[in-house]
């Protein structure tokens, strides 16, 4: 048992943290936020060059990492610096689907920073159910609607799930397709997201797709990719929670009310202590989710569900308490915390929320 970072991880963390501190600030973020697609291509390419995207894939897949620990490390740093960039959806989630399906040329492009992807899987009434697919494929002709597809507009090509057999909640019979951005019958209604970045409603009206991997076997690829994406999301949120807590600590020490720093008001001091305790718990949950990612599936899933549930609860505490203890200033868009709090809260809406993962955890541990 050993909780120290390896030398390689320590180096990666140091260089990432230094780079992000230098290159990410509210100015670059606001540029990303107000850009047409939510993607800052300079940052994307610079990070790709640093090998950040390569860290998401194993050597066999053309990368030089790919473990839970590699990925958690990168995303925690992205979260800590409050980076708005679609690494999670475009590179990790979509990329791991392609890597598992053996599409290694595309993965190489991705690692090089030359490809933007989007995974169009969720549907208007699927909520967080991964097995819900109503979009239908008949001989590669797709019909249906995909909901809140992150990074759709900026993507070079879409990955779309569709049902080739079975009923709407069946795991078997889900297939994956490439869909060209200029395909006839494809409509992308783009919108900005509260926490930054863009997503879209994607409608498919007799759209030609090209099969990825084996027909009807897409669910396993999706499940695996969503699992690692959930770990990444937890790690990113941990970074954001760290940033929020540090800002709040600093504010309590600096801000004067009634003639003294508000950190000296015991009610606030005790609540800050509770936040710090939950931060340690959150860090442990992420360490477990990342560290057990290579274990057997049950151990892996138990720890991922546990982590996402705990992050949902601790994240809410940290976001809400940070705002409350700051007071009015935290309500303003220009103050860093507002942005961080939105990212922490919106993380609960990705890859299953607090209750969704609690139920999955219950199913695995109480049977």
């Amino acid at each position, binding site marked *: 048992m050993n909780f120290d970072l390896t030398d390689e991880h320590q180096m990666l963390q140091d260089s990432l943290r230094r780079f992000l501190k230098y290159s990410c600030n509210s100015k670059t973020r606001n540029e990303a936020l107000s850009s047409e697609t939510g993607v800052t291509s300079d940052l994307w390419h610079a990070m790709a060059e640093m090998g950040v995207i390569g860290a998401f894939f194993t050597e066999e897949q053309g990368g030089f990492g790919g473990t839970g620990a590699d990925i958690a490390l990168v995303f925690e740093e992205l979260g800590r610096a409050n980076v708005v960039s679609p690494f999670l959806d475009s590179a990790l989630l979509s990329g791991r689907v392609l890597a598992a399906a053996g599409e290694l040329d595309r993965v190489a492009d991705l690692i090089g920073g030359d490809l933007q992807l989007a995974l169009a899987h*969720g549907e*208007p*009434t699927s*909520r*967080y*159910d991964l097995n819900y697919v109503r979009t239908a494929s008949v001989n590669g002709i797709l019909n249906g609607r995909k*909901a*809140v597809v992150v990074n759709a507009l900026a993507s070079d090509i879409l990955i779309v799930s569709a049902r080739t057999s079975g009923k709407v*909640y069946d795991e078997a019979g889900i297939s994956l397709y490439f869909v060209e951005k200029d395909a006839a019958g494809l409509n992308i*209604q783009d*919108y*900005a*997201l*509260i*926490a930054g970045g863009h*997503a879209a*409603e994607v409608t498919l009206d007799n759209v030609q797709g090209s099969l990825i991997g084996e027909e009807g076997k897409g669910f396993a690829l999706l499940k695996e990719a969503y699992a690692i994406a959930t770990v990444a999301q937890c790690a990113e949120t941990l970074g954001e929670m760290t940033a929020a807590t540090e800002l709040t600590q600093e504010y309590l020490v600096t*801000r004067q*009310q*009634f003639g003294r720093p508000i950190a000296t*008001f015991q*009610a*606030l001091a005790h609540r800050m202590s509770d936040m710090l305790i939950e931060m340690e718990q959150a860090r442990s949950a992420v360490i477990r989710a990342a560290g057990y990612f290579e274990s057997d599936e049950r151990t892996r899933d138990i720890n991922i569900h546990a982590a996402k549930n705990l992050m949902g609860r601790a994240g*809410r505490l940290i976001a*809400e308490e940070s*705002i*409350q203890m700051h*007071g*009015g200033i*935290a*309500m*303003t*868009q*220009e103050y860093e915390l*507002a*942005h961080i*709090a*939105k990212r922490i*809260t*919106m993380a*609960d*809406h*990705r890859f299953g*929320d*607090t*209750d*969704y993962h*609690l*139920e999955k955890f219950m199913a695995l541990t109480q049977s």
Partner: protein
Amino acid sequence: MDLNYSKDDLAFRDEVRAFLAEKLTKELSEKVRLGGDLTKNDMEGWHAILNAQGWLAPNWPKEHGGAEWNAVQRHIFDDECASSHAPRVVPFGLSMLAPVLQKFGNQLQKDHWLPRILSGEDWWCQGYSEPGAGSDLASLKTKAVREGDDYIVNGQKTWTTFGQHANMIFCLVRTDSKVKQQAGISFLLIDMNTPGIEVRPIILLDGSAEVNEVWFTDVKVPVKNLVGKENDGWTYAKYLLTHERTNIAGVGFSTAGLAAVKRIAKAEMSGGKPLIQNPLFAARVAQVEIDLMAMNTTNLRIVSQAAAGGAPGVEASMLKVKGTIIRQEINDLARRAVGPYAMPFVSEAVEGSNEPLPDPHDAGPVAAQYFNNRKISIFGGSNEIQRGIIAKVKMGG
């Protein structure tokens, strides 16, 4: 003890319902229901409709044109308005300034300003908070120096809701800096069109632009616009703060919000069933509904005592804390209920557009509302300040 409405109360409720059915347009109520930002016209229109009905000022004495309803009637009215999604009446003139003028203003001030509040000729905003002051209201720095028949005002106010619409502002200003904090404060009425006043919007984290900074540079205010005595403003400010606390529990908003959560959760599917049948979500909904039922009765108990002569002091603080906890919990449930559709950023205010929302359950605004309503436990005396008041009253110290 009798928990049921009397016959008179029921008749009054029917009257309110009929009024709302007739006068509140579908367009306006839908805008309110979906959390859209109301225009100045929307708000002024509803103000005028209520005024024409004589229902604009429930708390005012009849002599000034008020309705003089009792606590139960006020509760019924608030409840019906909230569940019909009527716009909230802008409170700054009606519920904040007016009680101060009625109690401490001189005859000229009463005669001049009160009718203009009812008619909507003046739109008032509030100049209390200052940057850096926060909950420590009495540490304010905006200065007013007497020069002949004028005060010259310099300084900055913040968190001024609807400052962009207002033509008048009531302000706390420091007229004596040598005495201790609460002393030396005066209460001034200032025309927003006076040279030297600048209003700058503050964009809130949900993208809304309701609140403002107001800057004063050598602003001339006639001495006749001083309310009460110079340096006695803190007394009037405290009086205003107790009167600010009408409908402080926000039971009507919570009731409407909870109904919306249930409506969404009946439509939203989870694992092949409506979300409302998911026991964990349903339990969250049920718990807050139980809290809200109790809050409804707590509110009625307290306001009916107030009507019977008792002043709502520490009880108002209790209503504020628990009322905001319940409202925020309902906001949280709403954002959970819509699932991934909580993520889109939809703000007509910022984008100036009116595109159809991207999902099937009118989900768009719920996350924005969740973020926006973090303010209700901060502004108007934070929940920490309220807890301090409760402890002080109940345990001294």
